[in-house]
């Protein structure tokens, strides 16, 4: 039936083989998009009339921030699939996403901080969006350290999976609480985010970079999953054949 591809995907061997065939293509597309996006963003688009050249930080900041949220949802869904149907590969996917997602979150905060210095004249501001991004980083770190705390990797998978699902339900609540908290104290900072209508060349660069960064993260995640499969399936016959080829 049509579900067959899904079941086949749950076999580490099949996942390893198909991802090995996909990776070169994915890398090619990613690098091409990255090159075009960076050229368009850093060179071929105008500087902002107010922010000057510091607006170019946006071409990294917005994509990493989007990726950080997107990959948390992806991680939680993978963990839920692994928990409910006891699919080993799904857990490997969740575990491999976590460090990449955490890095994306960190980069979003880091680039945002460097953009805030010239624009708002401060490295850090307790703005609602920034604070919920920081909490997201804590959630990623919690997932990673819980998984590492268990000697038995499969127990760690299930424990971290429960945490990821609880986090997924909690994220909207945390997000709106933080918004509420912020608007109570100071409403002005949010309006700084509202940009005037964007120049077409800037929009092209931004959209390209969003796709490129998400694809880039996917490539890294695929490599991590393959490493995870290799370390867990250590000594299996198919893996030996695969590597000796």
């Amino acid at each position: 039936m049509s579900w067959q591809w899904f079941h086949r995907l749950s076999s580490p061997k099949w996942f390893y083989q198909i991802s090995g065939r996909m990776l070169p293509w994915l890398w090619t597309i990613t690098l091409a998009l990255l090159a075009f996006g960076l050229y368009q963003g850093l060179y071929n688009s105008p500087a902002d009339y107010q922010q000057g050249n510091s607006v170019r930080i946006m071409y990294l900041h917005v994509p990493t921030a989007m990726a950080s949220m997107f990959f948390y949802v992806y991680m939680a869904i993978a963990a839920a699939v692994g928990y409910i149907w006891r699919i080993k590969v799904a857990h490997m996917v969740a575990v491999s996403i976590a460090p990449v997602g955490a890095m994306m979150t960190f980069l979003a905060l880091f680039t945002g901080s460097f953009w805030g210095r010239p624009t708002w004249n401060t490295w850090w501001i307790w703005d609602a969006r920034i604070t919920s991004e920081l909490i997201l980083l804590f959630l990623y770190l919690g997932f990673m350290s819980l998984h590492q705390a268990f000697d038995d990797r499969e127990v760690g998978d299930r424990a971290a999976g429960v945490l990821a699902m609880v986090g997924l339900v909690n994220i909207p609540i945390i997000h709106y609480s933080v918004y509420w908290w912020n608007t109570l104290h100071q409403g002005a900072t949010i309006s700084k985010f509202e940009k005037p209508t964007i120049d077409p060349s800037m929009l092209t660069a931004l959209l390209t970079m969003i796709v490129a960064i998400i694809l880039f993260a996917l490539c890294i995640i695929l490599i991590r999953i393959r490493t995870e499969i290799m370390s867990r399936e250590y000594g299996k016959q198919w893996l030996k054949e695969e590597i000796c080829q």
Partner: protein
Amino acid sequence: MMIKILLHRELLRHWRSRQDLINPLIFFVIAVSMFPLAVTPEGELLEQIAPGVIWVAALLATMLSLESLYRDDFHDGTLELLLMQSGSHYKVVIVKIIAHWLTSGLPLVIISPILAVMMHLKGDSFWALLSSLLLGTPVLSLIGSVGMGLTVGLRQSGVLLSLLVLPLYLPVLIFGASAVTSAAMGMEYSGQLAYLGAFLFASLSLVPFASVAAIRVSIR
């Protein structure tokens, strides 16, 4: 009937190891009384920082008390037997959470007026603190039970537990502290209390599922 027996057993167990319950309370008082020493003994400023200080201290004290929820029962095998024999895992977990709140959340609420007086909270903000803690601490017990269930089998779980649970406590902290702040400024604070009540009922209906899943991971 089953629930009554379980609850009686839980309360008796907590009563017999009451030092474990008193220590978080002492921590709560000590942590709050550090702030006037570190920041300022002046009444006006104390009144401003008091809501946040008391709420953060309550959060940390609850975290310290979470150990008593599962730890002993897990290590002598009682928890496993209870889960096997009770027929319903939910009953065991929910009774344990209720007993935990009665023995560590409620004492925090009862002791908080003393701290409120020490931190110069007056009139409305006094009542706001009391009612926000009364609505908020059960949520802390509920959410904490998930983190504790996940880490009970680990040797060094203290710091890890705080890493897992504190980000999830954030909404309660925000609305709890802001209820007291609003009251101190002479504003209406029923909105914040309504949010806390909503959190309480939402977590009361959803958290036991996660909590049972968490404890099942630790007991194999």
